[in-house]
């Protein structure tokens, strides 16, 4: 497609793509913030939720935090490679990151399957409703990030549009940060 000249201008000094990603993240902060804010208020009101929260698997959550942190490392290394014009290396790191996303989702599905079998479904109580809604919304972001990353990677390997590695990286780190907060909120605070 013909790229408009508008896209190449940079009056702020920040490249257009990166500036847009920052705004995407800004808008996501309030979306997650609204949900988690509501959760925190309810959680403070209902002491009884700690009994429900005791049924979450801290280990699974911790493993997933570790997986996401590691994938974050991979994507930043990919960004570093892309910055130095090494598309092949960036491609490998992008796919390592996607692999991290897969492991995250697999652990999550095993975890959820177990919980659902034990009867901890969304309708059991509001805690579980929030648990599945918040983690589900986050998982959707993980999936979206993986899809975008996969699409980008095929340009990256041809050394095309290398700046996009940084853009998806920033988004992926944000998804990571959301999980960093979800983990104590849903798993640790018991």
């Amino acid at each position, binding site marked *: 497609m013909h790229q408009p000249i508008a896209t190449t201008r940079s009056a*702020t*000094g*920040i490249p257009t793509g990166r500036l847009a990603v*920052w*705004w995407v*993240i*800004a*808008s996501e*902060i*309030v979306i997650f*913030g*609204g949900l*988690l*804010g509501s959760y*925190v*208020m*309810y959680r*403070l*009101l*209902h002491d*009884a939720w700690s009994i429900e929260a005791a049924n979450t698997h*801290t280990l699974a959550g*911790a493993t997933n*935090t*570790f997986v996401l*942190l*590691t994938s*974050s*490392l991979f*994507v*930043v*290394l990919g960004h*570093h490679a892309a*910055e130095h014009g090494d598309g092949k290396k960036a491609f490998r790191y992008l796919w390592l990151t996607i692999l991290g996303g897969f492991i995250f989702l697999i652990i999550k599905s095993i975890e959820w399957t177990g919980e659902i079998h034990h009867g901890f479904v969304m*309708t059991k*109580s509001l805690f579980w409703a929030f648990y599945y809604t918040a983690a589900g919304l986050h998982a959707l972001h993980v999936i979206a990030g993986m899809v975008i990353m996969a699409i980008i990677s095929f340009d990256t390997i041809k050394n095309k549009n290398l700046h996009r590695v940084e853009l998806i*990286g*920033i988004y992926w*780190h*944000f998804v*990571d*940060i959301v999980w*960093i*907060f979800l*983990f*104590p909120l849903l798993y*640790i*605070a*018991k």
Partner: protein
Amino acid sequence: MSAETSPKHYVKIWAILVVLLILSVLGPMLGIKLVTLLTAFGIAIVKATMVANHFMHLNIEKKYISYLLIGMVLMVFLFVGGTSPDVLMPEGQHWEKQVIEQPVELDHGGHE
């Protein structure tokens, strides 16, 4: 600048993050509420800041991006601040809101 963006630096940050993660899991096992809160949420904030600064490169990005993101976080606090007096205080002088923990009824949607 270059020291901030070298692979070695990234691995170092990652290692610190993993150590913090282990601390945040071990902390609550002591069973002291204050320690739990500190290790769980204090460490979460530290971790998030580290990821934002070193992985998202907010440390070398233009300052107003940080202010923008912090502003958005403040929006969330504003919302919670304005809402919590109502949501967290269900009792009033002239009315009462009963909080019942169990689901008392299963409603079936639709109308007869």
